[in-house]
């Protein structure tokens, strides 16, 4: 194009636009290849034999018949892998269990065969002899004096404790009790704050098992090359952490582990930990000297993938007559299951909500995490915040009612503002909390409906309407848990001014490829189509701590912007040299270098790139940037500004309760989120709507029934996900608080939308019926019983070990 004929180019911004997801056309055409779809030449198919007992000693395992089956290449038990390393968050279990099984998901043997069918047939030929042990079916049993130990010290044949070699699994180290972890946090003077309270309420809340239900089941492919280097195709959300961990388990140098992430069929936190199946698949590949693929069935996914952390929680809260909160005291009992995964560490997030969602002068928080023979809980979107918010936001309504104050006014009186430094040391640099509250309340006509519904409780007809509000605080600028919370970017422009963005950040369907492209294009004045994202290969991409904690847009976004700004500076400097002007006068727009003030195009960017490259002083535009957020690690007392920014929201839930049947229909959700700034409006709406409906499932329909260690409903018929006809009307709006550290002002939002729904639904059911329900989920049966006073109120005497 002749530059002279090109009209001036006005500044245009992509920020806040509705940007189509880059990978959507492939996905909508069925062309995207997920791990389930991948075929590696020569690969074998693997299956795992799991325990048929909840808690037992393994007396013997006989794999001879399985090994003899034609088509079977390898059968492994713990005895075949003598140097297994302990895995998991607390390094408390081995991938293959040899002496003892502690839950029904426990892995006893694994088979690699020519086909899934042969592997399945081989599993049926393996004979395991057990000796049953007493079952600890719930957390309250685990702390009873004299309770059987889930992880007792191993004994020699003569009954003496074994002397254990170094690096022994914690699971074998022996424990004097069933306590896996403890968390104790406090700020302020609880006793004095309680003495100054006019009203004190105390209740126990019971939070149930739910699970991620990613539509793509778990899967992994492992293969070794001729030099013993490991290549894994994995759905992990944290490839760089896992690269290091897998190397540790194999006792090889981490540089010899490469992880490629095919497109992932849903994450939601489920893929943050290393699970036994992944390590076992590596063992099989090593033994078979062939690539090995292992993919779960849906039933297996329900039985052997993580759950949300079930919690028993006793909360004591107080306030003054004028509506000022005085204190909160919290004791929780976390059912860890048989082993420790991330679910055990949800108190990191829960205590933030108790200490800092509202201004509360004194807060005392205690969690005991105990081993049982149940499935073990992992991280799940919200990371304990759904559980904490369920308790807090019901107490906010209950306290307000006790002092005769409107629930919205009560929240507004205690809500945080920008500039606040909380008792836990969190610093709220941007905070649109109050605007979220007022906006959601006004848009839903909360005050009028709340009053009308109370007045209509005794009106004729079985269906009662209710409205409830709840609020949330969540990290929105990463979370400094690991030594670094950073993300690296490599950015290059080719000689056609197309950008390759190589980022450490993983795409799990949330739209990170698109939003990162958008942020780069905003800097470089290019269309989204000019960007190719490379983000799934540890051999190529720079380090990133992983996709969790709602951090990717914020952290990877700032990293991408940093790399793009360096590229822009280099481009403008080159253009200024060439055109004899000052680079400060130039800008990039519409694929051109332009004079910033007039918009007059100076040179097409692609042409400038070619001039740079194919010249005597050949030069390419390639930049790198590593972004580390300005947050700090918490100290031993859990205090510290752990995130660079915090996200806020208020959600109003409207329900219709059929008092004849107990059916609760969620009719409308009005949500207002402080997202810092809207980047991709289309992607943001999608995240919020999806999160709201996931919250609806947590509140109303989803319930993984674990009965004496046995999961009773491992299928979609009996584990009810919300379906299309059941979704509420959704009115979603955004507060733009323009966070100073955020990429273009944005904050993280991935987890936020699920957090308030169950709490707001509880308040709405109370508003409709005058009955408060302290346990989830609000299934028809549970609500029917509660309305008739037939549900015993959960009660747990707050307890902590001496």
């Amino acid at each position, binding site marked *: 194009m002749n530059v002279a004929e090109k009209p001036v180019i006005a500044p245009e911004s992509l920020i806040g636009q509705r940007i*189509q*997801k880059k990978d959507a056309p492939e996905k909508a055409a069925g062309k995207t290849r997920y791990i389930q779809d991948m075929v590696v030449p020569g690969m074998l198919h693997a299956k795992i034999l799991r325990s048929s007992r909840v808690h037992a000693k393994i007396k013997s395992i006989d794999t001879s018949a399985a090994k003899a089956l034609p088509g079977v290449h390898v059968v492994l038990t713990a005895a075949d892998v003598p140097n297994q390393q302990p895995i998991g968050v607390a390094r408390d279990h081995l991938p293959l269990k040899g002496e003892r099984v502690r839950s029904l998901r426990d892995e006893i043997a694994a088979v690699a065969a020519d086909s899934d069918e042969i592997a399945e047939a081989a599993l049926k030929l393996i004979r395991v002899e057990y000796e049953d042990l007493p079952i600890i079916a719930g957390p309250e049993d685990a702390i009873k004096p004299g309770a059987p130990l889930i992880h007792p010290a191993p004994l020699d044949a003569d009954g003496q404790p074994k002397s254990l070699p170094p690096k022994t699994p914690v699971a074998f180290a022996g424990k004097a009790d069933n306590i896996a972890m403890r968390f104790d946090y406090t700020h302020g003077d609880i006793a004095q704050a309680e003495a100054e309270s006019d009203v004190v309420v105390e209740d126990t809340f019971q939070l149930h098992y739910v699970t991620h239900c990613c*539509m793509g089941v778990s899967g992994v492919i492992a293969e070794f090359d001729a030099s013993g280097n490991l290549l894994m195709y994995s759905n992990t959300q944290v490839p760089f952490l896992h690269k290091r961990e897998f190397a540790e388990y194999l006792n090889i140098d981490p540089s010899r582990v490469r992880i490629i992430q095919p*497109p992932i069929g849903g*994450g939601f936190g489920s893929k943050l930990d290393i699970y036994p199946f992944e390590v076992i698949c590596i063992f099989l590949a090593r033994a078979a000297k062939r690539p090995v693929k292992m993919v779960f069935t849906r039933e297996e996914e329900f039985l052997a993938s993580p759950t949300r952390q079930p919690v028993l929680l006793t909360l004591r809260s107080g306030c003054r007559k004028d509506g000022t909160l005085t204190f909160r005291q919290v004791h929780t009992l976390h059912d860890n299951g048989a082993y420790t995964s991330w679910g055990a560490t949800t108190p990191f997030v829960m205590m933030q909500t108790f200490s800092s969602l509202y201004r509360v002068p004194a807060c005392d928080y205690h969690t005991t995490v105990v081993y049982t023979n149940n499935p073990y809980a992992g991280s799940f979107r919200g990371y304990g915040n759904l559980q904490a918010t369920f308790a807090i936001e019901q107490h906010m309504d209950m306290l307000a009612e006790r002092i005769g104050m409107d629930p919205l006014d009560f929240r507004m009186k205690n809500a945080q503002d920008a500039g606040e430094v909380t008792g836990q040391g969190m610093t709220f640099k941007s905070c649109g909390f109050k605007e979220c509250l007022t906006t959601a309340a006004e848009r839903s006509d909360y005050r009028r409906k709340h009053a009308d519904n109370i007045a209509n409780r005794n009106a004729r007809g079985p269906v009662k309407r209710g409205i409830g509000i709840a609020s949330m605080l969540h990290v929105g600028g990463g979370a400094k848990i690991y030594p670094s919370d950073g993300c690296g970017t490599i950015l290059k422009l080719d000689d056609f001014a197309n950008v390759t963005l190589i980022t450490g950040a993983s795409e799990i369907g949330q739209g990170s490829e698109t939003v990162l492209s958008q942020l780069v294009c905003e800097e470089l004045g290019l269309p989204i189509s000019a960007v190719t994202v490379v983000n799934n290969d540890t051999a190529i991409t720079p380090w990133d701590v992983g996709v969790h904690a709602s951090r990717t847009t914020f952290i990877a976004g700032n990293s991408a912007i940093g790399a793009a700004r360096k590229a822009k500076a280099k481009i403008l400097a080159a253009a200024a040299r060439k055109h004899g002007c000052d680079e400060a006068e130039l800008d990039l727009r519409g694929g051109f270098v332009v004079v910033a003030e007039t918009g007059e195009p100076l040179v097409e960017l692609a042409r400038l790139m070619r001039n740079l490259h194919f010249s005597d002083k050949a030069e390419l535009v390639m930049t790198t940037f590593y972004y580390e957020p300005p947050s700090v690690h918490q100290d031993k007392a859990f205090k510290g500004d752990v995130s660079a920014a915090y996200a806020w929201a208020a959600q109003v839930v409207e329900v219709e309760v059929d008092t004849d049947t107990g059916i609760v229909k969620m009719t409308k959700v009005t949500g207002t989120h402080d997202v810092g700034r809207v980047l991709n409006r289309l992607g943001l709406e*999608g995240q919020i*709507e999806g999160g709201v409906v996931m919250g609806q499932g947590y509140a109303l329909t989803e319930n993984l029934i674990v009965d004496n260690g046995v999961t009773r409903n491992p299928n979609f018929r009996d584990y009810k996900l919300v379906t299309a006809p059941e979704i509420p009307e*959704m009115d979603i709006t955004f507060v733009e608080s323009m966070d100073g550290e955020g990429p273009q002002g944005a904050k993280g939002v991935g987890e936020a939308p699920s957090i308030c729904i169950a709490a707001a639904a509880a308040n709405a059911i109370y508003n409709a019926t005058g009955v408060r329900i302290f346990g989830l989920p609000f299934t028809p049966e549970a609500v029917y019983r509660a309305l008739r006073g037939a549900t015993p109120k959960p009660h747990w005497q707050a307890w902590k070990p001496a």
Partner: protein
Amino acid sequence: MLLKHDIEFTLNGVRKRVTVDITMNALDMLRDVVGLTGTKYGCGEGECGACTIRVDGETRNSCLMFAVDFNGRDIVTIEGLAADPKADALREAFVEHGAVQCGFCTPGMVVQASHILDTHPDADAETIKRGLEGNLCRCTGYKKIVDAVESACCGGR
């Protein structure tokens, strides 16, 4: 000893002749024998809709069919919808309306939506929701999927 059976059917407009185990399900045949992986395994028991295909025009969960049931039938999978201009518009609507996140349920959704479009070209949101009831999605909360299908319905009006 597995019994084999020869079957002949039309797959995405092309005649196919395949020898299959009589116990093989149709989903496994499509994915592992024919090599079309757009049709997904989500649950294997007809609860999630990720494996939705069209059989003589109607939608079916392929995981609940035997491969031999394809004999003599006209089968269309997500890959086959590439040749259908109406389905083109539908796919574009999914992209434009943000109806795709992780994308694992999307092929089944698009196939189911193509049937809604054919049978209820003027469907309103409530009809579309009913039509998608058998297809589970964990990411989107369904709203944008319903919006996409509705716009394609209205687009055809």
